[in-house]
């Protein structure tokens, strides 16, 4: 009986603490919201993404980049004399919560812009809300179709993104594969439960056909698969020159491990979903020679200027961990917004969104960005990176910088 009483007390206390915390949080946001909307001393930028759940890594990394940018800006006195404040919310990769988060950021926290979501699905789902609420939504990761425009092709005025678009990069890379590396036959591996991968496969297939590369076999896997023995066995008899892998790095690394294990001496090429040290943490030596494209010079030996400085500062602050694409794009997203606000001399989204449209050859840590007529970003050049054995273990090395044009 005693035990039960104790547990009960603990539970009641816990609940009270939660409620108190909940109310406290509300109060905070209300206070600042009041001052914020009245042209107070902060500019609020919301973060939309998952910091819990199995896709939390994208969200957490984007958030880390955003915070770093906010710090950098605030150190120099903020924007228009106001501090940048990042309001962070987690949706655990649940669509319904993502919508709740956006509503909360806009209506309770009164943010002027939202950075996120790193994935296409949720960005697409919340884009109409941002549009109708006149709040800028800048995705630092969504690469799929119908983000900055609606399904029927209408341009959204408040929705932008700063990522390298696969539709731009993949054809350039395929051209390189055909012309420089002489690939003639490839196998495509699609991660069927990832919208990113399904979309990228479509783009690759068109580009391959345009460049006269034959797709000898198409295989599908699931992102959570960890055992690719059967799939690789199926590819083996086709003897392709290489593998186009459109999924994420965990599966990619493990897939290559199996490829090499089964004695196939070929490499894979893929999009920025493969960009991360996880690739060799999973694949080991098997990923040496694998190629990844991105708009970001993630090669510390080659990186220059802003990017070099960014990489150094980030890894210093994070026990030597290299920033990945999401960190860089999260950082750039906040910086882009800041520049637009400065240019408009106003933190009113109605005004500064016009300045985002005008960004041309904007130098970010994740590459050079131009916002085109169709609101889509153009990053040039596209870096084709290769995994090589470096001084401190495996790393990405720039194999080619392919210029692209809109």
């Amino acid at each position, binding site marked *: 009986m005693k035990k039960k009483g104790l547990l009960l007390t603990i539970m009641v206390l816990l609940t009270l603490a939660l409620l108190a915390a909940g109310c406290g949080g509300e109060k905070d946001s209300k206070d600042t919201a009041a001052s914020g909307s009245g042209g107070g001393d902060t500019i609020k930028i919301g973060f939309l993404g998952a910091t819990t759940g199995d896709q939390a890594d994208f969200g957490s990394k984007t958030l880390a980049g955003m915070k770093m940018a906010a710090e950098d800006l605030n150190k120099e006195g903020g924007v228009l004399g106001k501090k940048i404040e990042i309001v962070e919310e987690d949706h655990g990769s649940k*669509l319904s919560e993502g919508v709740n988060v956006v509503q909360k950021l806009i209506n*309770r926290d009164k943010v002027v812009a939202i950075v996120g979501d790193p994935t296409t699905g949720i960005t697409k*789902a919340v884009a109409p*809300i941002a549009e109708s609420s006149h709040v800028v939504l800048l995705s630092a990761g969504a690469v799929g179709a119908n983000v900055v425009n609606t399904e029927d092709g209408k341009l959204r005025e408040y929705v932008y993104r700063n990522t390298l678009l696969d539709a731009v990069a993949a054809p350039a890379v395929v051209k390189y594969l055909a012309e420089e590396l002489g690939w003639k036959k490839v196998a495509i591996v699609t991660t*069927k439960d990832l919208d990113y991968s*399904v979309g990228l496969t479509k783009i690759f297939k068109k580009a391959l056909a345009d460049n006269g590369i034959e797709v000898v076999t198409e295989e599908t896997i699931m992102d959570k698969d960890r055992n690719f023995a059967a799939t690789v066995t199926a590819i083996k008899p086709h003897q392709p020159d290489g593998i186009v892998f459109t999924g994420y790095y965990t599966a990619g690394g493990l897939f290559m491990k199996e490829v090499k294990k089964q004695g196939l001496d070929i490499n894979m090429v893929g999009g920025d979903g493969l960009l991360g040290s996880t690739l060799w943490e999973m694949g080991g030596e098997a990923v040496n020679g694998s190629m990844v494209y991105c708009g970001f010079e993630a090669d510390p030996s080659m990186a220059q200027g802003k990017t070099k400085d960014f990489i150094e500062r980030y890894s210093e602050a994070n026990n030597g961990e290299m920033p990945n694409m999401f960190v860089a794009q999260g950082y750039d997203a906040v910086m882009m917004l800041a520049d637009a606000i400065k240019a408009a001399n106003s933190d009113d989204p109605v005004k500064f969104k016009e300045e985002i449209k005008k960004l041309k050859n904007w130098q970010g840590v994740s590459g050079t960005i131009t916002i085109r007529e169709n609101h889509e970003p153009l990053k040039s050049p596209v870096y084709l990176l290769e995994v090589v054995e470096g001084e401190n273990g495996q790393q990405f090395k720039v194999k080619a910088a392919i210029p692209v044009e809109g």
Partner: protein
Amino acid sequence: MSAFLESILDPYYIQVLTLLGVYIIAALGLNLITGVTGMFSFGHAAYFAVGAYGAAILTVKYQFPFYGALLAGGIMAALAAVIIGFPALRLTGDYLGIVTLGFGEIIRVVFLNLDITGGALGLAGIAKESSIVLVYTLVLVTIYVMYALQNSRFGRALVAIREDDIAAEAMGINISAYKIKAFAIGCFFAGVAGALYAHLLLFLNPTDFGFAKSFEFLCFVVLGGLGSIPGVILGTSVLTLAPEFLRSLSDYRMLIYGALMVLMMIFRPNGLLGGVDLQRLVFKNKYKSQAGRSTAAGG
């Protein structure tokens, strides 16, 4: 009405509350199946998904009027329930539970692989039709239907099946027919809720309808109190709003959510309102003098 609400509530509240309404409709459907009739169903999200995708495909790809699609979503879910129910309802207890769970997963995998659902790319371009007023009107309709059902001869037969299926059969109740009917009606409401969900969130993705969602529905019902309509509404509200309340805990919120589930079960094993008969509580005297028609709330 909607305009009025929007003027006094901010869209965040409206969004959260509307979603809560949608979940209440689905949870009340599950309550009829599990709470009233005593059949385990660990795959409720599948019927929710059938309704969501069914209705969304009709409005997006075939330009169906929304209300027609709403009804069609419910009917498709009920049909799916009948198809799986005929063979599966012979099983009882955990076996029925695991088969429904398996069916739920199969539906999700099928939706992921079909072209018409958009697969992993999801289904977008759905028009916003589910207003808070519409959703809560339907919540009221659902509550009324459930209340009327539970207090009818039909509901009495279902409770009898839950309490003792052999005795119920011996009293002349065709238990398989009733089980199928209850299952279909419960899933109909899941389907309607799904259709509302689709036209509220405007984007569908198969990963949102896995067994985690099914268990979420089950938790709404069990935590509120099996068989108790107010209990289910309370349970759904607590569990839907808890993650919103727990936001301030950021990364710890799902951890605490899990712990709360364990603690709530330990201290209220019959659910928050399980074993509390509100009718008896409120109408204590009246109940004694008047012919009562309530069947007991289960526990």
